[in-house]
């Protein structure tokens, strides 16, 4: 699951948007240049040849400058800035690029036509006004361009986020389904029922308690999809119900050591996380050993980080990879999806006779 998530996101994030960008750029600037040239030819009655040259010049200049502006904005990561910081920057940048465009236009001798041909006679001030009109014209152009650019970016980001979210939801749902499958482990369930039936005749009180525990465990497991995070205290209660049933089945073979720091009890963890680790420890560890063994559960806070440990003896002949089964990888996926990178889950099998699963949950930053 985690793998497919990564792969598809990779493809999405790295989808090539360059062709679309250049197509829009080319089309927009060509259109702008054409409109300008047609206007010059029709309104100002400029010769067609000159209008064509002007069109080419305006389009090219706009294209080159806007692309340079884009490179600069990308380099400075403006798309990540809040609007209040981004808008002044865009204004300044548009002004500067507009000024540059106006200067280039002036020195290359293209800008004169408006004032000269329109023959607005403001005598002495005339070149300066003409320059300023040019600057304003270009600046507006780049402002509009930036608005389009960031809108397009925002839309793309939104689509991406939606897709990411949909994918997350799908992954969660899938892992929830698999979780249910592994938790309502039919082997455990039917064995538990058999145990209860064995108790009914001779020890009705224990049978009643076992039924209650089993009911609570089932209810918790079936409702596990509703709350993604629970307090350690809630999770521990259900682990105790589970261990109560396993203790009936395993008898003296199951020893339990608990070391739970009271201040850790209110920390929130993904639902069924500890339960999965404990079930794993019994299934692959203690239940596999003829004399059984001691299960150790530890929970503590180390500098604000919640540390959970489940340790169990295991049969020596089992190859190390065997215990890292569906249960652990499932728990890890859920942990990643629900809590993100501030949580880790490791299975330490360096000791051939013991397995130690450790979860670390650092506090939200």
């Amino acid at each position, binding site marked *: 699951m985690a793998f497919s998530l990564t792969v598809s996101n990779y493809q999405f994030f790295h989808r090539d948007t360059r062709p679309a960008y250049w197509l829009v750029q080319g089309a927009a600037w060509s259109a702008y240049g054409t409109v300008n040239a047609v206007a010059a030819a029709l309104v100002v009655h400029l010769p067609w040849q000159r209008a064509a040259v002007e069109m080419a010049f305006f389009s090219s200049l706009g294209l080159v400058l806007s692309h340079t502006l884009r490179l600069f904005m990308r380099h400075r990561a403006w798309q990540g800035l809040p609007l209040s910081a981004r808008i002044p920057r865009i204004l300044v940048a548009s002004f500067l690029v507009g000024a540059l465009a106006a200067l280039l236009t002036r020195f290359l001798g293209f800008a004169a036509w408006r004032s000269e041909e329109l023959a607005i006679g403001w005598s002495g001030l005339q070149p300066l006004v003409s320059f300023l009109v040019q600057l304003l014209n270009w600046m507006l152009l780049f402002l509009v361009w930036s608005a389009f650019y960031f809108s397009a970016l925002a839309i793309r980001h939104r689509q991406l986020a939606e897709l990411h979210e949909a994918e997350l939801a799908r992954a969660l749902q899938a892992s929830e389904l698999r979780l249910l499958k592994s938790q309502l482990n039919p*082997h455990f369930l*039917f064995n538990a029922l058999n*145990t209860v039936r064995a108790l009914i005749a001779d020890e009705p009180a224990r049978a009643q308690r076992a039924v209650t525990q089993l009911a609570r465990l089932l209810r918790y497991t079936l409702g596990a999809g509703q709350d993604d995070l629970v307090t350690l205290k809630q999770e521990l209660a259900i682990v105790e119900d589970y261990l109560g049933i396993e203790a009936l089945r395993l008898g003296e073979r199951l020893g339990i050591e608990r070391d739970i720091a009271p201040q850790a009890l209110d920390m929130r963890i993904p639902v069924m996380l500890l339960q999965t680790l404990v079930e794993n420890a019994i299934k692959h560890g203690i239940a596999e050993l*003829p004399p059984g063994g001691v299960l150790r559960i530890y929970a503590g806070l180390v500098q604000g980080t919640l540390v959970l440990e489940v340790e169990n003896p295991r049969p020596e002949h089992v190859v190390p990879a065997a215990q890292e089964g569906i249960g652990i990888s499932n728990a890890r996926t859920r942990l990643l999806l629900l809590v993100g990178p501030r949580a880790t889950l490791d299975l330490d099998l360096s000791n051939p006779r013991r397995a130690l699963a450790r979860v670390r949950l650092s506090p939200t930053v």
Partner: protein
Amino acid sequence: MKAVIIDDEALARRELRRLLAEFSWLEVLGEAANIDEAAVTIEALSPDLIFLDIQMPGGSGFDLLARLDRVPNVIFTTAYDQHAVRAFEVNALDYLLKPIEPERLAAALQRVNNAVALPMPQRQVLEQMFVRDGARYWFIPLREVRLLSAENNYVRLWWRKMQPLVARPLSAIEQRLEPKCFFRANRSEIINLEFIENVHLGINGGLQVQLRGGPEVEISRRQARLFREQTSI
């Protein structure tokens, strides 16, 4: 009939014992909680029937059967491994799902009773081996094996269309074979006389025996004389 219960859970054993109390003709001689205990118990008590859980610490019920020299009748008891029991290609005995239903138990016991009550010649069919070949399991009645051939420390059983390997020396299996049925053809092969199709002279004074369903086996010169005496050819 004598029975042994093998299950790692004390309460599961207690429950089965309680259910079996209904059947006065069945006597539960003992219990075992893992396959090591079970192997010793079965060796000591030689029960006619074992109730066998599949998932147990230290080794599965199948591991136990593969270890036994003489395999009694087996009824598997399992919470959820019926698919594992169905892995048997042929000769699957019964299995019961836990919690065990009394009616199903009665039917399974009836079947075992019928099998045990068969007249002697057919009862020999019950002299069986549990054989595991990859992911497949068989109870193989030795009477139906036409050829046993030694391959290093293994013995290959030629049985129907299958030729599974058993991790035992040929001599150990030979002791359990009915001497009237089986004949040591040479150093490494034992043939089932009932499967002989034809015999003709081979080189070096030996005999060539063609078995029904193959293959052809050579009887060594030394054994050929014995073979002629025994089969009066």
